């Protein structure tokens, strides 16, 4: 009898402690400012210092952002601290869940929808003093539910990167730089030797999608309400990629034992690759002896096309000092500052007013910026990353698959996540 009472007491004690702890944990999440700030349009303002969370490609980027933020801090009198995330999506999620997120942060197109949906983000796009200067497709990439959420930080496009030495060895000249698919197939065949293939790129939508765009395909209709992944144009684009691969003149990077197209290209396993302007950094750092040139992606039956990737400067809805955060972002996306970033770590400015200067500074990479005219963004719907990942996992088997079948499963998965 006595033992039972003691057991009950012990159980009761544990239950109480657990209950208390749960309450304590629950209250650890501050309820935050709610989304009141964004709905009535007034920004929060306080003396709180700002935290800036970035994902850095290397020391150069971290140092450049630190300098820029410190210089703004000096001018405005608001303290700001930059930290470099080791796993940005995870650290952002933790911040939003705890109610004390970083004030300003890098935000990818993948993550936009999820965070916008749960109200973590401040949709401040319309409060920027200057929005017309951004490339319009970049603004589209960060528009969710008809709200322009955040200022594009910089962007990248895909281009055709060519190994100069192999090009000359194959007896090709400037006039041979491919402008259409036939030209590309042609030079890929000429550049293929016993030692290397003509063209290599990653087996992922983020490369193959460029060919689908060149064929005139898109993933949704104009309004973005219906999936059009299994359109004839997309099938044509993917079939062209399959033909390239099965001809032996092109290969997926993984099949050459390389982690990505740049590695296959840098190590001389491929004479050409499809990559973005980030390849300049990799070539400088890892393969400084390889001489290369960049051309625009060749046109397909649907005209020129390529993919574009971008990140923006997000501001948290729970930030106690949104006013200062917005001022900081204005400074960070200003033309001069973007040119300074471009100089420091090789990105392309998101504003059109910096384009000419950038092309003058980086004549070899001008093709990447010129591609902005016909570049299309990658899908941003919530769950799109999973759908793309699924398509990527099937692309690896493209050479033995029917392009229409792959696109059909892509279509059904994609249709399921459209609003």
């Amino acid at each position, binding site marked *: 009898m006595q033992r039972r009472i003691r057991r009950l007491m012990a159980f009761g004690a544990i239950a109480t402690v657990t209950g208390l702890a749960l309450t304590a944990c629950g209250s650890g*999440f501050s309820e935050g400012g709610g989304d009141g700030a964004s709905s009535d349009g007034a920004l929060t303002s306080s003396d709180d210092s700002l935290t800036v969370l970035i994902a850095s490609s290397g020391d150069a980027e971290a140092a450049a952002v630190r300098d820029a933020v410190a210089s703004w801090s000096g001018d405005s009198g608001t303290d700001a601290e930059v930290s470099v995330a080791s796993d940005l999506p995870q650290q952002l999620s933790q911040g939003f869940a705890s109610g004390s997120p970083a004030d300003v942060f890098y935000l990818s197109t993948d993550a936009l929808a999820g965070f916008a949906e749960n109200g973590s983000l401040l949709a401040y796009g319309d409060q920027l003093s200057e929005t017309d200067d951004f490339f319009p497709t970049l603004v589209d990439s960060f528009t969710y539910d008809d709200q322009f959420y955040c200022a594009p930080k910089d962007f990248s496009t895909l281009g055709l990167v060519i190994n100069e030495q192999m090009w000359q060895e194959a007896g090709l000249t400037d006039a041979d730089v491919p402008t259409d698919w036939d030209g590309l197939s042609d030079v890929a065949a000429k550049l293929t030797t016993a030692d290397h293939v003509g063209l290599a790129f990653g087996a992922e939508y983020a490369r193959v999608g460029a060919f689908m765009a060149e064929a005139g395909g898109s993933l949704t209709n104009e309004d973005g309400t219906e999936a059009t992944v299994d359109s004839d144009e997309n099938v044509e684009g993917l079939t062209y990629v399959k033909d390239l691969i099965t001809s032996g003149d092109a290969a997926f990077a993984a099949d050459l034992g390389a982690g990505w197209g740049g590695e296959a290209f840098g190590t001389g396993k491929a004479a050409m690759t499809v990559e973005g302007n980030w390849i300049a950094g990799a070539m400088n750092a890892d393969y400084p002896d390889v001489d290369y040139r960049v051309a625009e992606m060749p046109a397909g039956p649907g005209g020129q096309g390529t993919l574009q990737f971008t990140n923006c400067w997000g501001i948290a809805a729970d930030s106690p000092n949104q006013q200062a955060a917005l001022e900081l972002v204005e400074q960070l996306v200003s033309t001069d500052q973007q040119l300074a970033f471009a100089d420091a770590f090789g990105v392309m400015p998101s504003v059109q007013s910096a384009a000419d200067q950038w092309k003058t500074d980086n004549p070899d990479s001008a093709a990447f910026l010129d591609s902005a005219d016909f570049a299309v963004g990658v899908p941003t719907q919530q769950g799109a990353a999973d759908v793309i990942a699924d398509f990527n996992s099937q692309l690896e088997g493209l050479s033995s698959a029917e392009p229409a079948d792959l696109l059909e499963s892509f279509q059904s*998965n994609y249709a*399921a996540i459209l609003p």
Partner: protein
Amino acid sequence: MSTTSPRVGRRARPGTASRGEATSGWLFVTPTIVILGLFLLVPMVMALWVSVSDWSGRGSPFSASVGFVGLQNYDDLVNGGGLAARDFGISLRNNAWYVVFVVPIQTAVSLFLAVLVNRQVLRGRGFFRTAFYFPSVTSSVAITVVWLFLFTQTGAVNRALSWLGIEGPAWFQDPSGVVHAALGAIGVTGPAFLTDHDLLGVSWWDWFAGPSVAMSAFVLMAVFTTSGTFMLLFVAALQNLGGDVQEAAMMDGANAWQRFWRVTLPQLRPTLFTVLTLGLIGTWQVFDQIYTGTQGGPAKTTLTPSYLSYTSAFAGQDWGRGAAIAFVLFAIIVVLTIVQRAVLRERPVSRRRMSLYEPTASTRKEARR
């Protein structure tokens, strides 16, 4: 038995133990209870709640705006029919094959190593024990990175294989299932009744794909890293075995092989249970290798439920689904452990088995002589 010894009588009533002792007892376990409660029990209760709620990842899961959705998240996984269900099916398939290969191999290898280093005649036993145990104390992230280098297309493993005239695969890039490949080599391709029907969005034929080449590299790694730990458990158990039983078996004329299988191994049953259970739990929860190494690729063949749970929550912002996956995984581990317990329980020796131990006619005659 119920002879009234006064000592037994006093022991049987814990309530009369001195009050001071009980207090200090509680005092000593309090830190553990608090820490376990705070970092284990509370998060588990929270995760359980999240798995049945529509929490979106912002603010407290216990705030008023978070709604109860019942088993919706679980239903999406099992009956959803969409990408979520298929990813879950794929991850279960991958992890099941991983378990099927890792658990028996690591148990056998660790037992073999234990018997080896337990032999009195072996010189430098200490050295070998340390060497075999070394991978277990190294961080799994570090080993994964080393593994990625060893198993590249032009890595050390393929170089070694080339000496034997074998052209190695591009390990971590190769998504082909080894069972499918083996069946393909003898000309078997998926029969229609297997390819046409599916479970969790994965066709029956694909359930039988076996671990991919990439997953096989992880299987080898798991065996390499954990065998040392379990070897230690077996060594401890072996050293607890009395020599008298061995001697008796020797006197009865059992050879070394028979002594191992009929005398030593049955005595190791409790340790075997521990090793199998720990192995089962560890292999169903494989995460760090995937996170550091392949992120689920190539072609999702190294996607595991724990990694899927992580990406669903942190990358997909679908926290309910992430938590639901974690609890399905929990249920799988509990059920399998119960099954294993039932299989390994102490049973009366069957007639067939008994006959192995009974003296045969010839040995009986010898004994009479």
